C-alpha cells in the first residue's frame, strides 16, 4: 500500500519543520523536508551597522544561542581583516565549547531521549537494581537505591496525579522501546539531573556574555573587560562577602566560577552522558544500520589556537568527505564561487537568475515568494517548491554536517583522542566502523565529540589565566572599531562549527552598512529540500528506505530526524499518493 | 503610539525633519539677508573696518561697565541663561555623544550633578527673564508673540531634560522623547523667530563694528 506520510509538528526541536514522505509497504521511498516558518532576518539585516549584525543573527536560534552571533562577528572581522586579542579568542573558544557541552547534553536528555526511553516503564523499575546498573557503568555519586526510589516516587506521584503535562500522549509502551525498566528509570532520573545541571553550566556564558540564552558578543573581541590587575593584592572579607561585587563579572570570583563550571561539565559528561549513551546504545544496536543519509560529510573547522586566519591551528579541521571515503579528504574554499552554492528550485524564494541556478552566498538573494497552498492545508506539493529552507550544495553535492561529520573528519585526519574514543565505542557496542554512518552513529558521535571538547576546555582556561598572570588582560581591539576606518567596500565570511554542524555567514559591507547578508546554517545543509538535480537533502536521504513498524506511531522517523538535532520548525503528516489524507500520525 | 515609539520617532525621522527645517530655514534667512545687498562706502575710512568687524563680534559680548549698572538684571540673567544653556548643551555627556555622532568632534564632559545644578540655575534665570519681560514696561512693550514663543522653546528643552534626568512627571523614556521633541521644536522654530540671533548677531556685530571702525571708533 502506498501512503504519503506527513509529519507536522515535530516537537522537541527548535523551530518549525515539516516532512512529507512517500511510503510503499511501510518503507519510505521518498521524504520531503520543509521548513514552514520564515522571518526574513537576512532582509531585515540589510542597511544596518555590521557591528550590530551579530545580535540580529544570533536570534536565528535561541538553542544554539551562541553560534550565529559568533559567526556574524567573524564574518565582519573577516571582511575588515580585523584581528582580535588572544584572550578574546580563548574566551570565545571557551564559550563555544560550553555551548557544545550544554547543547549536546540537553539534546540527548531533553530532546532525543524520549525517542528511546519509556517514561512509564520506569515506574516498574526496582530502585535497588537501578542503583546497581548505574554503579556498574559509572561512579556518578547520585546512584543510591534511595535516590532512585525518591525519583521513582516523584514520577509516580506525578503520573498518578493524572495530569501528565509535557509527558501527555507519549507513545509509552511502543514495541520499539527496548530498554529495561531500570535503564528507563536511570534515564528519567538523569533527565531531571541534566535539567538542573544545564542550568548551572549555562553560567559560563553569563560570566563572559552577561546572559544565557543570547549572550553578548563584540566585533573585534569580546565584551567582557577583565577586572583583575596584576599589581594589586586581593580583597574580600567576612562570611557575608559575596564576591562578584567587582567592576565586571570577569573578576577573580568569576574566573574561579568558570573553572568550577568546567569541572562540573567534565564530570557530568564523563560520569553521566558518556556512560548513558553507551548503555542506551547497547540496547539499540540495530539502529547502527539505519538512517545514514547522503554519505557526504563536510566541516568548516573551528576552535582556532592562532585566530581564524590560521586554519592549521584549528582543533576541528575542515574538509569534505565524499561517499564515505575516509581516506580522501577534499579541501573546500568558502570564497570560491563554485564550491558553496544555494539552490531554491524547491524553495519559496525567487532568484533573479532563475530558480534553477545556484548562487554563492556573496551573491545570494532573499526574495520571498510563497507558492505553496493556502493555510489551512493538508499537504504540500513536493514536486514544486515546498520549504522556506534553501538547498545548499558543495560543488553541487548535498552534504551532511554536524557531529558525525566532525568525528569522521577528526578520525580521518588522525586526531588521536577521537580515534581512541571511536574505537572504544565500536568495541563496546561491538560494531564495525560502518556503524558510524547511521542514526545511532550520529547520536554517539555527538557524545564523543562532547567528550573531546570538554576535555579541551581546561587548556584554553589555563592559557587565559596564564595570559592574565603575565599581565595581558586585553579582550578587545579598538583599531578598526570606527566605521570611518573601514574600506568603502568589503566582504567576508564568518564560519564556525556549530553544535549542529558547519555554519557560515557571508557579509557584503558597503559604505559602512550591510549590503548583503546570507547565513547558510547547518540545518539548511541537513534539512534543506531537493536541488534542481533532484538530489535529496540529508534528512530526506536518511529517511529513505526506513521501515515503519506502525505508520500511526512512526517513532522511527523521529529517531532519525532527532539524531540530526534539528534546529528549525517542521511538520509531518501522512497522506495518500493522491494527496488525500489517510491518517494523522502521532509521533513521540 | 507608546513612549518608545515616540522616542524612536524623535531620534529618527523627527530629528531629520527638525534638522532639515532648521538648516533650510537658516540658509533661507541668510539668503534673505544678503540678497538685499549693501552699497560700497565711498567715504575714505580712517582705518580698515574688517578687523574691527571681526573684533566686535566678540567684544560686544562684554557690556560697558556703566551700561551694565543701568540694566543689571537683563545683563546678569542674560549671561546666566546663555552660558548655562551652552554649558548644559555642550558639556553633558549625552549631548557630547550627539555632537560626536554627527560631527566626529568630542571633548570631556562635566560631571552630571554639576550640569544638573547649572540646568537649575539656567531655568531660574530664564524664569526671571520671563518675569522681567512681563513686568518691565520696556520689555513688555517690545514683546511679541514670537518673543514668548522663543522663550518657551528655549525653556522647554532645559526643563524636560532636567525632568527626564530626575524622572519627574513621566517615566524616563517618555520624558526623554519629550526632551528630544522639545529640542526639535526649538530647531523648527529657530529660523523663524528671534532665535536666529544666535547666527545673525555675528553678521550684525560685524556690520556694526566695521561701520564704527571706518570712522575710527572701536564699538
Amino acid at each position: 500500500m502506498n501512503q504519503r506520510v506527513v509529519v507536522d509538528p515535530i516537537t522537541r526541536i527548535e523551530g518549525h519543520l515539516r516532512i512529507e514522505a512517500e511510503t510503499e509497504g511501510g518503507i519510505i521511498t521518498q521524504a520531503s523536508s520543509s521548513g514552514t516558518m520564515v522571518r526574513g532576518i537576512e532582509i531585515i539585516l540589510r542597511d544596518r551597522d555590521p557591528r550590530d549584525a551579530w545580535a540580529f543573527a544570533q536570534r536565528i536560534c535561541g538553542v544554539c544561542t551562541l553560534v550565529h552571533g559568533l559567526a556574524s562577528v567573524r564574518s565582519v572581522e573577516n571582511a575588515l581583516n580585523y584581528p582580535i586579542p588572544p584572550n578574546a579568542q580563548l574566551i570565545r573558544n571557551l564559550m563555544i565549547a560550553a555551548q557544545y557541552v550544554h547543547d549536546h547534553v540537553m539534546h540527548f536528555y531533553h530532546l532525543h531521549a524520549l525517542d528511546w526511553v519509556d517514561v512509564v516503564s520506569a515506574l516498574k523499575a526496582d530502585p535497588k537494581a537501578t542503583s546497581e546498573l548505574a554503579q556498574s557503568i559509572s561512579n556518578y555519586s547520585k546512584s543510591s537505591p534511595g535516590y532512585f526510589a525518591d525519583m521513582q516516587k516523584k514520577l509516580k506521584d506525578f503520573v498518578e496525579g493524572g495530569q501528565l503535562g509535557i509527558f501527555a500522549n507519549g507513545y509509552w509502551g511502543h514495541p520499539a522501546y527496548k530498554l529495561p525498566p531500570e535503564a528507563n528509570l536511570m534515564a528519567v532520573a538523569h533527565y531531571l539531573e541534566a535539567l538542573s545541571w544545564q542550568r548551572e553550566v549555562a553560567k559560563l556564558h553569563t560570566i563572559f556574555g552577561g546572559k544565557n540564552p543570547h549572550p553578548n558578543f563584540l566585533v573585534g573581541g569580546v565584551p567582557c573587560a577583565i577586572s583583575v590587575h596584576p599589581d594589586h593584592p586581593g580583597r574580600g572579607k567576612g562570611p557575608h562577602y559575596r564576591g562578584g561585587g567587582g567592576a565586571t563579572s570577569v573578576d577573580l570570583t568569576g574566573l574561579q566560577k568558570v573553572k568550577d563550571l568546567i569541572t562540573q561539565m567534565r564530570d557530568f559528561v564523563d560520569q553521566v552522558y558518556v556512560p548513558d549513551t553507551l548503555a542506551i546504545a547497547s540496547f539499540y544496536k540495530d539502529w547502527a544500520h539505519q538512517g545514514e543519509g547522503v554519505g557526504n560529510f563536510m566541516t568548516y573547522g573551528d576552535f582556532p589556537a592562532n585566530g581564524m586566519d590560521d586554519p592549521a591551528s584549528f582543533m576541528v579541521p575542515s574538509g569534505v568527505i565524499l561517499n564515505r571515503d575516509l581516506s580522501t579528504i577534499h579541501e573546500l574554499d568558502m570564497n570560491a564561487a563554485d564550491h558553496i552554492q544555494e539552490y531554491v528550485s524547491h524553495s519559496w524564494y525567487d532568484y533573479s537568475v532563475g530558480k534553477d541556478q545556484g548562487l554563492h552566498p556573496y551573491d545570494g538573494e532573499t526574495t520571498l515568494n510563497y507558492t505553496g497552498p493556502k493555510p489551512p492545508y493538508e499537504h504540500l506539493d513536493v514536486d514544486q517548491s515546498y520549504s522556506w529552507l534553501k538547498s545548499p550544495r558543495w560543488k553541487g553535492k548535498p552534504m551532511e554536517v554536524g557531529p558525525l561529520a566532525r568525528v569522521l573528519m577528526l578520525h580521518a585526519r588522525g586526531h588521536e583522542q577521537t580515534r581512541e574514543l571511536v574505537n572504544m565505542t565500536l568495541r563496546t557496542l561491538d560494531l564495525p566502523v560502518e556503524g558510524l554512518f547511521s542514526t545511532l552513529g550520529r547520536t554517539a558521535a555527538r557524545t564523543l565529540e562532547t567528550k573531546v571538547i570538554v576535555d579541551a576546555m581546561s587548556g584554553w582556561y589555563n592559557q587565559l589565566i596564564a595570559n592574565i598572570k603575565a599581565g595581558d588582560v586585553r579582550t578587545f581591539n579598538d583599531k578598526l572599531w570606527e566605521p570611518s576606518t573601514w574600506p568603502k567596500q568589503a566582504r567576508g565570511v564568518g564560519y564556525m562549527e556549530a553544535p549542529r554542524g558547519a555554519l557560515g555567514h557571508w557579509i557584503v559591507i558597503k559604505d559602512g552598512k550591510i549590503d548583503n547578508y546570507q547565513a547558510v546554517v547547518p540545518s539548511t545543509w541537513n534539512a534543506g529540500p531537493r536541488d534542481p538535480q533532484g538530489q535529496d537533502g540529508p534528512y530526506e536521504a536518511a529517511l529513505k528506505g526506513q521501515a515503519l513498524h506502525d505508520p500511526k506511531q512512526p517513532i522511527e522517523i523521529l529517531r532519525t530526524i532527532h539524531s540530526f538535532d534539528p534546529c528549525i520548525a517542521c511538520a509531518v503528516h501522512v497522506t495518500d499518493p493522491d494527496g488525500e489524507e489517510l491518517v494523522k500520525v502521532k509521533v513521540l | 503610539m507608546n513612549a518608545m515609539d515616540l522616542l524612536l520617532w524623535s531620534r529618527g525621522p523627527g530629528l531629520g525633519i527638525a534638522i532639515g527645517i532648521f538648516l533650510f530655514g537658516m540658509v533661507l534667512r541668510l539668503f534673505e539677508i544678503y540678497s538685499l545687498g549693501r552699497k560700497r562706502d565711498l567715504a575714505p575710512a580712517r582705518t580698515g573696518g574688517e578687523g574691527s568687524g571681526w573684533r566686535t563680534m566678540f567684544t560686544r559680548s562684554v557690556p560697558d561697565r556703566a551700561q551694565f549698572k543701568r540694566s543689571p538684571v537683563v545683563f546678569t540673567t542674560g549671561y546666566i541663561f546663555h552660558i548655562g544653556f551652552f554649558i548644559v548643551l555642550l558639556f553633558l555627556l549625552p549631548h557630547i555623544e550627539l555632537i560626536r555622532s554627527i560631527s566626529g568632534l568630542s571633548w570631556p564632559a562635566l560631571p552630571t550633578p554639576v550640569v544638573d545644578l547649572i540646568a537649575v540655575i539656567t531655568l531660574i534665570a530664564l524664569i526671571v527673564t520671563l518675569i522681567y519681560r512681563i513686568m518691565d514696561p520696556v520689555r513688555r512693550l517690545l514683546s511679541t508673540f514670537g518673543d514668548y514663543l522663543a522663550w518657551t522653546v528655549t525653556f522647554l528643552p532645559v526643563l524636560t531634560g532636567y525632568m527626564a534626568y530626575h524622572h519627574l512627571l513621566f517615566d524616563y523614556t517618555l520624558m526623554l522623547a519629550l526632551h528630544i521633541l522639545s529640542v526639535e521644536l526649538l530647531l523648527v522654530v529657530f529660523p523663524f523667530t528671534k532665535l536666529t540671533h544666535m547666527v545673525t548677531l555675528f553678521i550684525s556685530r560685524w556690520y556694526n563694528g566695521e561701520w564704527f571702525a571706518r570712522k575710527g571708533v572701536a564699538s
Partner: protein
Amino acid sequence: MTASLQKGINALREVLDAPIASYFSSCVRCGMCAEACLFYTETKDPKYTPIHKVEPLRRLWEQEYTLTGRVKKMFGLSKPVTDEELEEWSPLVYDSCSQCGRCSMVCPVGNDITYMIRKMREGMAISGHAPEGVIGATKRTIELGSPMGIKLPALQTQISKQEAETGLTIPIDVQGADYMALLSSMEIINFPEYLGALAKIFHNAGVSWTLSSEAFEATNSGIQIGVADLARDIVMRIVTAAEKLKVKSVISPECGHAFTALRWEGPNLIGRPYGFKVVHILELLDELRSAGKLKTTGKESEALTYHDPCQIARRGGVVEQPRRLLGDVAADFREMSDPGVWNWCCGGGGGVSANDRAEHLRLTAFKRKKAQLDALGVETMVTACANCRIVLEEGLEHYNMNVKVVGLTELVAEHLVEQEAGK
C-alpha cells in the same frame, strides 16, 4: 494708499539693505537700547526705546523681504504700514532721536539702530511725516542756501567785523588755497568769533586757506530730515565750490552733523569720492599742534570740561584731538562722566533743535547733561559744535545753571602766541 505714502514706502523699500535685515533678524527685544537713550532714561517712557522707533520699518522689511512675511501678507496676517501709523511714529523718529548713536554702541547683538532711524527718516520725510520745524529748515537750506536763511551779504558783514577785530585778512574765493573753510549758519549768526579764531590760528600757523562765496554753509538739513536727494544737492554745492577753487582740503566747522554729512555721507550721496580731503577743524588743529605750528601760551585757570558732540566723537572718530588741545590751554580740565564715545547727547542733535514741537522733550532730556555737570562743578563747558552750543546754552538757561559754554577753536585762538600781525 495715498501717493505720498506710496512714495514713502517705496523709499523704505529702497533703503532696506543687508545690514538692516541682519539687525532685525538679530534683535532679541532685550530692551537694553532703552537704557542707552537719554530720551528714555530721562522720561522712563518705554515708547522711546530706540528699537521701538523703527517698528514700522521692521514690519515693512518682514512683509517685503522675508518668506514668512510674504506668506503672512498673502494670508492677510500682517498689519500694513499706514499713514496714521507713520504719523504716530513721527515724534519717535524725529523728536526723540538725536541720531546720537549711543544705542548702537550698547546693543548686545550689534544692531546699529541709529543707522536704521536715519534710513527710516527717508520714508517718513517723503511721505510727509517730518516735523514742521525740520521741514522749514530744509526748505530754507534748499531755497536760501542755509537753514537759518543767511546769505552772502550777512557773511560779508561778519567777515569785515572779524577782520577789524583781528587785524587779519580773511581770504575769500582764493584759487588754489590749501584749505577751504566752511561755517555753520549758527556760527555766522551767533558765534562769529569762530571766524576770527580761524584767521588768527591759520595766520600764526602759516596755513593757506580761503572761504568760498558760493559755498560757505556747512550744515545739511537734508541729512537731518532724511531726504537723500536734497542732501545730495546741498553737499554738491560744497563739492562744486571746492573743486572750482581747487583746494586740497575742506575744513568742516564746529558742527556735528555737518561733519557727518560732508565727511561720511557726502561721497555716498553724490556717488563718487571727492577730489579733496575733508577734515574737521579739531583734526586740523591737532595736526598743526603736533607739527609744532600751533603754539599756545597761558592756560585757563578756571575748572572746565569738554562736551563731546556725538557726530564728532562717537560717529566721527574725533575723540583724542580735543583733549590734547585742551591740555595745552586748560589748567583744570575735568572729564565728564561717560566721556568720549560714551558721551550723552545735548538733546538737540539730528534735527531735534530745529524741531519746535520737541522743545519740551529736549529740555527734559537735558536733565542728563545737567546731572553730569552738577556732579562736576565746573564753570565752563567747552565743546566743538555750534548746535550743541546753542542747545546747551538754552538748557543751562532753562535750568538756571551758571555755566559758560565756549567753542574749542576760539579757546585755542585766545591762547595763541602772538606773532607779527598783518602778513
